[in-house]
């Protein structure tokens, strides 16, 4: 929908967006971790490839904080290629010629699934802060309802990076019998204090914007663009690495030969961040940003399993049947390798089936979205191995 003026889309009718949509929780509302109930609610999703006859080739992709369900097709607002087109598509590591790929917009989001910008049927006004607080568990619960709606009992694999990795872990822990394999990427079993702190900076930036209007900006006809942009700028730094920033910008000046002794964007890195902030507000809703960051902050798999991460992987006293492949990136300081390793150690302690690879890169947390051939080889190989065990392909060699 390139013709749609970008600044309108976040409050536009989601029905005008491409992709599929389903109403869930209509008969029985979905119970949320907070105790509140949600339903009926909408889930926007995309699928790629074809579901096979015994419905055993479905892969669920979970998107990150500001991602969406347009994994492998052009983004309806920005016009950019799908955010994981390098990984997902015909002949790609997640091969849509072989697998049926599902990706949905998280609930609480702003690209078609129910979120705070939607109309609250109780008031006829946008929810704003009346939207219930969500958790990663709630997001995955909604995804499970979608998978059931599609008639699939067991997913072949769940894949996600960052917040998508949290959802992937949640899938494996909450529904171990419905997941054959899981690939949590650049993620953690709980959100660290440092990461909660960064999120709080972002939220405070939004809430400090006078146009936020206590979350009622849609009713009052304003947009907290400056606050949301600052939140994005701060977050964006955490997605990169010092070497990557230095390689890209150094101390280079932006369109000038000398510093101006003022507060203009003298440095290229400033100009870049301002651009990132400005571009982000075109496609994202400020309240959604509050809700989704909060869901990540609340994520703590070990706490949910009585304080022991190992217990999370031992449902009913038995080792989880899910085959895991964890991937981290050496320069990621937002979700460092040690977070993945903690999950690996917990899985080892229950003798779970786990692979773990750290990819060497200087691109920071964002590396999971970028062209990292070794990372893509690992995903491909792990899926091939799992497909063999799942009986989706003939074994490479006779036994």
């Amino acid at each position: 929908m390139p013709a749609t003026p970008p600044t309108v889309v976040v409050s536009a009718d989601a029905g005008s967006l491409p992709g599929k949509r389903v109403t869930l929780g209509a008969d029985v509302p979905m119970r949320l971790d907070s105790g509140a109930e949600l339903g009926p609610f909408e889930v926007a999703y995309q699928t790629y490839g074809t579901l096979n006859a015994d419905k055993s080739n479905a892969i669920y992709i979970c998107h990150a904080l500001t991602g969406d369900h347009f994994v492998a097709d052009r983004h309806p607002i920005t016009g950019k290629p799908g955010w994981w087109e390098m990984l997902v598509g015909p002949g790609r590591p997640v091969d849509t010629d072989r697998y049926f790929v599902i990706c949905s917009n998280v609930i609480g989001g702003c690209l078609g699934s129910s979120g705070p910008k939607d109309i609250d049927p109780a008031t006829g006004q946008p929810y704003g802060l009346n939207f219930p607080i969500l958790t990663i568990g709630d997001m995955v619960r909604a995804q499970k309802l979608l998978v059931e709606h599609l008639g699939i009992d067991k997913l072949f694999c769940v894949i996600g990076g960052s917040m998508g990795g949290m959802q992937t872990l949640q899938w494996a822990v909450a529904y171990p019998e419905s997941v054959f394999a899981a690939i949590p990427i650049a993620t953690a079993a709980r959100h660290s204090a440092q990461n909660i702190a960064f999120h709080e900076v972002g939220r405070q930036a939004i809430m400090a914007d006078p146009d936020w209007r206590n979350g009622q900006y849609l009713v009052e006809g304003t947009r907290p663009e400056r606050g949301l942009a600052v939140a994005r700028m701060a977050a964006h730094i955490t997605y990169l690495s010092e070497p990557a920033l230095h390689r890209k910008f150094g101390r280079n000046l932006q369109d000038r030969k000398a510093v101006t002794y003022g507060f203009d964007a003298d440095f290229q890195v400033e100009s870049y961040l301002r651009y990132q902030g400005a571009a982000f507000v075109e496609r994202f809703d400020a309240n959604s940003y509050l809700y989704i960051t909060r869901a990540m902050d609340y994520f703590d798999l070990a706490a949910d399993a009585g304080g022991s991460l190992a217990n999370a992987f031992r449902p009913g006293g038995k080792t989880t049947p899910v085959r895991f492949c964890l991937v981290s990136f050496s320069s990621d300081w937002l979700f460092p390798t040690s977070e993945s390793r903690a999950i690996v150690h917990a899985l080892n302690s229950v003798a779970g089936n786990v692979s773990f690879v750290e990819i060497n890169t200087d691109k920071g947390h964002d590396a999971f979205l970028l062209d990292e051939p070794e990372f893509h080889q690992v995903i491909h190989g792990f899926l091939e191995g799992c497909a063999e065990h799942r009986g989706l392909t003939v074994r490479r060699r006779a036994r």
Partner: protein
Amino acid sequence: MDIRDDLKLIAEMVEPNSRVLDVGCGDGALLDYLAHTRNVDARGIELSMDGVRQCVAHGLSVIQGDAETDLKDYPADAFDYVILGQTLQAMRDPRGILDLMCRIGRRAIVSVPNFGYWRIRLQLLTTGRMPVTEKLGYQWWETPNIHFCTLRDFVVLCGDMNIHIEQTRILNSAGAVTSRSHSGLANLLGEQGVFLLRRA
């Protein structure tokens, strides 16, 4: 499928359909062989990231990790077999590793180079310098092998640790099995030994 002679001997000690952990699995050759010839649930742990990437990219369940710090995470009897091929001599704490292997595995399979092999003894005797052989081709100052033992040393350690040696294979320099016993001339004529162990 073709793999190193000592790896083939190790594979022959593994019952089909069992669960195996290969410690220091390298590029995964043994795991791949076991998975495809004996249908085992094959897992690996490997220090080098290159090795791990190769393994996982070939569909093997392998984690990047250091055996000396990570083996302790596993529960007792987590595996039917824990395998350590040609690596014991490179460990900081070989005795601790053996102990862990026999705890987390119902059985352990270990292959060790024999520092008591006659060619090694002869080199030391005639040149007075640290032996460098085809299979142990490092100078003393660069070798990762910091805890060499003879086959007899290894057998004595197992005895001290109350580890029962269930099977023995002694290999000559051509990789052929010359003996199924670690007594007699094995410590002189064998270039390496492969042992199937369990805690007594």
